[in-house]
Structures are given as structure tokens and as C-alpha cells.
């Protein structure tokens, strides 16, 4: 179970129910974190279909979008996270 510490990436993934891109984004994110950030991540998946108003906190327009809250500054990655290199660069893993 990932735990929170100084190096923990706090990640929030905004999805829209079970659209193909949303499911792909969840699956890709879990795989990338499992393989590259073992024990160093914390994922929260927010379904904007159920709670659209939660989009405001991070000014989400397109779905799916991944928000890296920690470490600051905040980073956003838009799309289904199928480009692993782009995700890793934005998560500052490589």
C-alpha cells in the first residue's frame, strides 16, 4: 500500500464514468506507477460524471486529466496516459 512521505506523488485522475479513455487512463496510470514508482504514489480517481462540480478545483476541462498535486508545482497531463514517456517526464521520474 503506497504511503505518504516527502517523495510521494499525490496524483488525482479525473475521469468521466467508464468512457474508453477514462478506463484506459486508469489502467495506464496504475501500471506506470506500479512499475516505476513502487510505494511512492497515491492515486485518487474522481468521477466527474458523478460529481461534476469537483472539476472546478483544478479547472478541469478535458477528460481524462491527471493532476500531480505533489510535489509542487501542480502539473496536468491531458489524455489517456498511453504515452508512457510523457507521463514519466511529467511525474519527474526520469
Amino acid at each position, binding site marked *: 500500500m503506497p504511503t505518504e512521505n516527502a517523495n510521494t506523488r499525490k496524483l488525482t485522475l479525473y475521469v468521466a464514468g467508464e468512457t474508453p479513455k*477514462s*478506463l*484506459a487512463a486508469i*489502467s495506464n496510470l496504475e501500471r506506470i506507477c506500479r512499475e516505476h514508482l513502487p510505494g511512492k504514489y497515491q492515486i485518487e480517481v474522481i468521477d*466527474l460524471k458523478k460529481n461534476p462540480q469537483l472539476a472546478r478545483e483544478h479547472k478541469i*476541462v*478535458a477528460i*481524462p486529466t491527471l493532476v500531480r498535486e505533489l510535489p509542487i508545482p501542480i502539473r*496536468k497531463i491531458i*489524455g489517456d496516459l498511453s504515452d508512457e514517456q510523457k507521463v514519466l517526464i511529467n511525474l519527474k521520474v526520469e
Partner: protein
Amino acid sequence: MRSSQEQALKSLIDDLRQRVTEAEETLAAIREGSVDAVVVGAEGQDEVLVIGDDVLAFRNFMEAMEPGAVAVDADGRLLYANARFRQIFAEDWDRLKGKLLSEILPGPAAQLISKLISHDDHETAPVSVSFLERGVERNYLVSARPVHLGTIRGFAVTFSDLTERVRAEAAERAQRIASAIIASANEAVIVCDRTLTITHANFAAEALSTEKLVGNRLDAAIPLKFPDATGILEIGELVESSLRGTPLRSIEAFAPMSPGARDVLVSAAPLNISDDEPEGCVLTLVDLTQRKKDERQMHLLMRELDHRVKNTLALVLSISKRTAASEETLEGFQGSFSGRIEALAATHNLLAGASWESLSLRQIFGAEVSPYAETSGDRINITGPDLSLYPRAAIAVGLIFHELATNATKYGALSGEAGSINLEIHPKTDAPSVEVTWTERDGPPVKSFSRKGFGHTVISRSLSYSPHGGTTLEFEPTGVVCRIQIPISDVA
């Protein structure tokens, strides 16, 4: 103050730049199809709009399908799985969603299916896969068709359950193999159920009955008689014994109603198809008719051999006594006795070569006369049809030819250079005997036997075992003439 204003302005510009960058990235993502939903706000009310088709429609359609069905993206990631698919893998949707097919399916099946979804422009032929479902192997025909799902291209993959069909085909094949085994067995094989009704019978079994076997009761179609020693009264007892778990092997029986009334060797074994009690009985019947016939023939031959040996010993004893009585010197006895025993042996040899069945008269003549003269030369002549003689007559005629040849060599046609012998075999008629005439010519003047020794006795009595057998011996001036009457009952 000025500095703090500049700081605030710079921060505002950075924020604006960040927001412009985000806006550009968002627009690019929408344009590139990297997202399939957007948040729109109207009067403070945010709402999520899904781009492309509503996934609910294809989900409802898939849910109504009887085969297992999944929607996957180009990577094989599950976008939806219907109830039948979830049942196959005993998983709920929350645990399946977003997983790759290769993570769910066993390796070989996953490899086959991955080929189906690797070419989105080509329809590929369905593949057959099998894997364990709750510990039981099941077979599926898997096909994949490209579909549009929202903003992406993916595949609808269906899993049609072929297990029952595969099992039925396997059962049918097993049935065909079992039938072929029964049919190709050389021995008679019969399968009956617990009520003795015949369910299978091969060609060899059908030959044991005049009726069609399948559908008939075993005890009616092939009634068997068992020797008292077996303690079995009828074939049903064999079946019942095997159904109780005691298979019986190699029980001799007689099938009186079978064509040719056959001797058989019966074995009965339970027909075990499942772990439950036997469902019937498998009987094999080995036809012993030929073997029994051979045994009877062998028994007969043994008795015949015993009889012949006793007869031969009695004959040898008689020859010995009578030769001794008719010869005056030991040398004379030795010569005559050896000659007669050799004559007997020559006919015996011929008979043994012919399995003691019958012998050609010409062969007997050749064997007995050849020690004294060239039978194929000018001095020996045979006319008339050959005759086949049974052993009793063959031995007698052999001894007669020996005595006649010995006499001809000593005193008759073969004693000089010019004499000859003609053997005329008369054809068979309705008469009770067949005549064979031995005629000597051109020998020295003939006198009657100076005394009627054993040779004369052999000639005159050897065929007297039958009222239609016998010889007449005439001493013509031109040579000896012997008319031999062979009983017709001893001519084959």
C-alpha cells in the same frame, strides 16, 4: 511599492501563460482525440459531456447477447464485459474494467485472441480456445470485429460456448471408435444391457445367430448349453455374475441353434461406463468348432494309430512265425523275413506320407516292384486307370505285390533276361470288387509252387478280410497270372 506591483504583474502574466498553455494543450488533446469527455459550465452548473457515441447503447446491446462478449480498445483493454463473460471468469465488472485481455485469459488463449485484434482493418477467422472454468475445461469459439467506441476504434470480441458441442463430438467419436473396435474384432463380441437386451454385436457375432441380434434378448438370440461341470444353466447367469462384479472367462459352451451348431468359449465382463454400477455386459464368444473338430480328429487318429500298431505287430508276428515254418535254413528265413518286413515298411511309408488316407495303386506297385526291376523300363508295363486304395487294402496289395515280385525274381519272368510283367488295372464298375491282373510272360517254363509256402498264403489270404476280396493264382505255361480282387469299399 513599484516593485510589489511589478511582482504582482509578473505573477499574473505567469498565471496567464500557464492558463494559455493549458488551454492549448486541452484544445490539442480534443483535436487529437486524446480525450472523450469535456466539462461545460452553464450558469454555474458544471456538466460532463461525452464526446462520440453514448457507450450505454453498446453496453445494453452486449448485455443482451447470449455469448460472452467484451468491448476492448486497440490494446486489448476491457472497456466493457457482459454478464456471460463475467460469469465465465467469475469476476465482477469493477475487477475486470480496464484490464488487458492478456491479464484475464490464460497464456495460449490470450495469444490466439491477441492476433484477432492486431489487425483492425482485416476481419480474421474465429479461433478456438479452451480454458478451465471453475476447474472444468470449456471450449469457446472466439471472434472479433472492429467497432467504434466513443472516440476510439476498438473491437467487439465474442466468446461462443462450444463445450457441449465439443463434448458431443468427442462422445460421438468415442462411440464410433468403440463400434469400430467391436466391428473389427475377429471374435464374436456382443454387448447387452442389464435386461439382457443386445445393444451391440459385430459381424462375427451375427454369424452365430439366424436372427438379427441388436434389440433381441441375448438368451433368445443365442441360446447356449453349458457342460454340467460349469454349474451354469444358461447365458443369463453369466451376465448376472459379471454385473455383480465377478467376470467369467473361457467357459466352454455349445450353441445348438447357431448355424452349424457351434462350440464356443464364452467370456463375460461388466460394461463400466461411469463410476456407478455396470450398465451392461460385454461378451466374447470364441468359435471352438474347428478346434473341437481337430481334437476329435486327433483322438480318432490316436485310436486308429493304436489299432494299426497292434495290427502291424500281429502281422509281423504272424509273418515271423509263418516264414520260420516255411524256410529250412536261417539264411532263408533272414532273406524272406527281411523282404516281407521291408515290403510292409514300403507301404507304411507311402501311407504315412499320405496321412494314412489313401494310396495310389501305381505307387504301391512301384514301391514293391522297383527293388527287383526297372518299373519304367520295357519289362514292366502298367495299363488301365489308377486306383486310390484305403490303408487296409493298400497294405494287403503291397504284400501281395512283394510276394509276386519275389517269386518272379526267383523263378518267373524276372529270373531271366527276356521275361516281362504286365499289370492291368480294370476300371471300377458296379461290381463289388475291382480286378487287377498280374501277368508274367516270356519267363522260364512255369511249374506250380513246389510247396505252398507262406508267400502263397500271403497272396491268397491278404485280401480275404472281405467277402469281395481275394486272389486267384494261375500257373499258365507262359507265366504266372494272378487276378487280384480288391473290395470296392476300400477303393476311394
